[in-house]
């Protein structure tokens, strides 16, 4: 193995034409990725106008309705209306509340089970059984237990998203490189230090894969739980607008969910790239 070259930084030493070329390259890459979006939108607009049915309002109409319902508020609140805050606030609260709770539970339990063969042997069959049950099937139970409302929705989300986190964490914590654990042992790195500086970072790439999967699952379960038992939130909004025949607003909620999922995934990837940069770069160089 030879000395690896320094990680590519645009640095002041880079000659101007090269930087310019790189900027142009980035722009092209972006364009190559999004060029289809306006075309799809135009096609959607034309198709819905031609079809002219109430169930498929054209996107321009959906956008206008979304603006009217959610984005015509005061500047000080980023144009958000009370309606928008009352819909997205509870939904996002449940989403992140449930997801974070599942993260804490899943990672804690996963590390414990990954490092203890005995514990893993006990809980493996239980995990396999529990995760085979579709979380939506438990909604009736959660409604009985918690009544309709935030508790029941958070319970549904936690139950639904904890499995990928748990299973990936167990896997990651179980297969810490032998030489890493030997080194830690010889140099007396134990207890919390060993957990935080050796086991957790070593398992981190796997844990993150689980977290990302569970985040998109959390969006699904947030909507599902709000469809069934809620008096606010995006899912409730979907049902309510459908029942009041406000098709444009219903489509608006669907669009918002798409945007939300996209944003969540992109921000998560960004955070992951930052936190696991050692992993990505170490793999590139060895």
């Amino acid at each position: 193995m030879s000395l690896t070259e320094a990680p590519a930084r645009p640095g002041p030493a880079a000659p101007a034409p090269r930087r310019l070329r790189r900027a142009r390259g980035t722009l092209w890459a972006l364009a190559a990725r999004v060029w289809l979006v306006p075309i799809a939108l135009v096609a959607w607009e034309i198709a819905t106008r031609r079809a002219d049915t109430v169930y498929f309002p054209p996107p321009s109409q959906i956008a206008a309705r979304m603006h009217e319902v959610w984005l015509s508020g005061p500047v000080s609140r980023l144009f958000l209306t009370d309606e928008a805050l009352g819909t997205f606030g509870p939904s996002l609260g449940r989403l992140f509340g449930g997801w974070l709770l599942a993260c804490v539970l899943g990672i804690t339990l996963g590390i414990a089970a990954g490092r203890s063969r005995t514990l893993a042997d006990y809980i493996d069959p239980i995990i396999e059984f529990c995760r085979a049950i579709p979380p939506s099937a438990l909604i009736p139970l959660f409604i009985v237990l918690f009544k309709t409302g935030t508790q029941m929705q958070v319970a549904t989300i936690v139950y639904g998203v904890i499995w990928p986190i748990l299973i990936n964490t167990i896997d990651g914590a179980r297969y810490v490189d032998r030489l890493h654990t030997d080194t830690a042992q010889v140099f007396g790195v134990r207890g919390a230090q060993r957990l935080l500086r050796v086991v957790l970072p070593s398992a981190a790439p796997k844990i993150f894969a689980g977290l990302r999967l569970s985040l998109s699952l959390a969006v699904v379960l947030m909507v599902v739980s709000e469809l069934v038992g809620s008096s606010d939130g995006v899912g409730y909004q979907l049902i309510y607008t459908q029942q009041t025949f406000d098709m444009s607003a219903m489509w608006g909620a669907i669009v918002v969910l798409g945007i939300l999922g996209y944003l969540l995934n992109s921000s998560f990837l960004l955070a992951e790239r930052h936190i696991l940069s050692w992993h990505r770069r170490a793999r590139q160089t060895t």
Partner: protein
Amino acid sequence: MLDVVNLTHTYGQGPTAHHALGGIDLKVSEGELVCVVGPSGCGKSTLLRSIAGLIQPTEGHIRIRDTAVTGIPGDLAVVFQDYSRSLFPWLTVGDNIALPLRRRGMDRQARHRAAAEALQEVGLDGAAAKYPWELSGGMQQRVAIARALAYRPALLLMDEPFGSVDAQTREDLEDLLLKVREHHRMTVLLITHDIDESVYLGDRVVVLTSAPARVAGELPVRLPSPRDQIATRELPAFVHLRAEVGRLVRAKDRRG
């Protein structure tokens, strides 16, 4: 300082059992550098792992400074052959060296000062903020040596420490080891399969037989210090010793 008596280790049981160590007796005195030579797969690493407390010997016992080794001895550092897996890729070079120093009761500042000093000693000044994988193999092994130095162990164990680097780097690292060991008056037990290396580095060479390993013979190395890669290796005494060690290694091959 290190006292190994009748060390025996068997992996597994019954007819498939592998007898790695067949009763090894070994003494290392304070400040001595002892090289253990033996062919690949003869149980050298098992010996080292037993002394490091990473595995329990089947029989026999190990004492360091008159204290029996039961768990992981507190005063011991190891440099492994596989530097890329023994350094933590998620920690910077400085943090890799500083991490074990917590148990020495040093505060954050003292730990990082010790790391910087150790890096300077191995010729890597200012590399503390780099990550291990940004360095070449030889440099990574220097970091592993720096980690061991900063730890100030009573006994330094090295498991084929220079087995994965090229010849030139290997000579540099050998001389580095001799330098820092002289400076710290460290006790070192180095395991290698390279006969030349064992004679060049050691105060004493212990030859093991093939598995189940036993001590085939011991040779004191009386070569002038400081040693020099060219001059030392052309001394008649060096050539003679190398042949002696070679004969011992061969003898056990024929028997096995």
